[in-house]
């Protein structure tokens, strides 16, 4: 179950992970995008760190909402609204539940709506979707996450910048899927799923 405490830890770990891998994320975004995914996510990560350092939260919903706003206001690009919308949906749903599986499910719905997209378009949805299944089955592991991310290589992009490349997007990991992989990897690390 998610608590204010372990969710705070989650966003701390996630932010650190993003900042560590900033250059790698931008590199993934270079051949099939515009090379800024690492910089975009790092701006958001820093905003989250800033937020967590300076503010206390009374409810889980409040925490998610503030993280969402910090992210939306600092990131821009495609990843800003997508993660931002996911976190806002999670904020709304966390008034009713603190079950991580249910929250990830509402987050994914938010991403699909915001991105007008679905599985198979070589976007972060292609990590969120299998991860949700693995959560449901109580079988999420770092290996599965990595495999989900890796599997985006085989897809042809039909949404986002990579879609301008069509077939030529094959063979590259989708950058947003990689950053989503970090999100779930750090969720595992919080121990909230145990």
């Amino acid at each position, binding site marked *: 179950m998610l608590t204010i405490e372990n969710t705070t830890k989650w966003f701390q770990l996630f932010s650190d992970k993003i900042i560590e891998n900033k250059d790698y994320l*931008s590199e993934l975004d270079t051949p099939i995008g515009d090379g800024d995914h690492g*910089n975009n996510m790092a701006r958001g990560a820093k905003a989250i760190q800033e937020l967590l350092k300076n503010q206390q939260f009374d409810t889980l919903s409040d925490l998610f909402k503030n993280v969402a706003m910090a992210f939306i206001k600092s*990131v821009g690009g*495609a*990843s800003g609204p997508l993660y931002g919308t996911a976190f806002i949906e999670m904020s709304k749903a966390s008034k009713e539940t603190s079950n991580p599986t249910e929250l990830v499910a509402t987050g994914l719905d938010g991403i699909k709506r915001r991105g007008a997209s679905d599985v198979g378009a070589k976007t972060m949805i292609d990590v969120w979707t299998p991860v949700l299944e693995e959560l449901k089955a109580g079988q999420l592991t770092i290996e599965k996450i990595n495999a989900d991310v890796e599997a985006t290589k085989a897809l042809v992009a039909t949404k986002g910048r990579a879609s301008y*490349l069509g077939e030529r997007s094959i063979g590259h990991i989708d950058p947003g899927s990689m950053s989503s992989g970090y999100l779930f990897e750090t969720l595992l690390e919080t121990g909230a799923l145990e």
Partner: protein
Amino acid sequence: MKKIINDPKNVVSEMVSGLVRAYPQYLQKIEGTEAMIRSNEASMIDKVGIISGGGSGHEPAHAGFVGPGMLSGAVAGQVFTSPTPDQIYEAIKAANHGKGVFCVVKNYSGDIMNFDMAKELAEIDDIEVKMVVVDDDIAVEDSLYTQGKRGVAGTIFMHKIVGAAADKGATLAEIDVLAQKVMPNIKTIAVALSGATVPEVGKPGFELADDEIEYGVGIHGEPGYRREKLKPSKELVQELLSKLKDAFDMKPNDKYAVLVNGMGATPLMEQYVFMNDTLDQLADENVEVAFTKVGNYMTSLEMAGISLTLFKIEDDEWLSYLNYAVDTIAW
């Protein structure tokens, strides 16, 4: 990376600061944002506001087109990155004078989503917002199953058209109809001689050999459709124009506006030569060239190259909008 900047992290805010300080007669910064609104408030009264924006690195777009007769405001995102919804929302609020706000957005997921979120925020305030998604880059194939084409230099024709209509008192609904009608008539294609370096990245998005060019590159260095050896201007024009001719299904006596747009590092000398060849070859097609413009309008940092935009004039009112007097930094 060889750039005249300070800390790459601050490049957008220092740029916006330099811009509004250099041109206070045109632009005012909306405090707490990198959004700018037209200084001449009187010229906006009782008119639909027109907002554009997107990632930075395309200067003079978009702030250079803010002024009476054209944009009401512009929002500058990080380099090649859509601005955030809160900033777009502030620009929409500042541009609204009771008649609603029209947004010109280029067809990138990020831009569309951030503008959509800003629109949702504005609607909570009962500000009516409509938008057109510019997708003029024919280098990208358009299919039902993809994101579609990119928005590039043709965007400035859209700015001009909707800006003039707004200034003449058109309603938000009328402007929306106009923009959707105009959009399929604007098509662009580019050739690049070198790549651009995003300051925070520090190395070029792509590299070309000393004698190599790439057709169909996007304004963020998105890959094009073919690389080959550098050719004379006439042959570059031939290649780009052949694509445009097909895309328009060009016929004798068609009427076009022509924009030769420098990508950043290409001198005007080359752009004028390229325009000369373009006009020669359009004359061979027996089409009428009713409007022409050459220069750096929608750039990609220090990319060298040129994009060619044709705008098919299906209604002479569009031509009058292109020629409508404006007062901006860059039009």
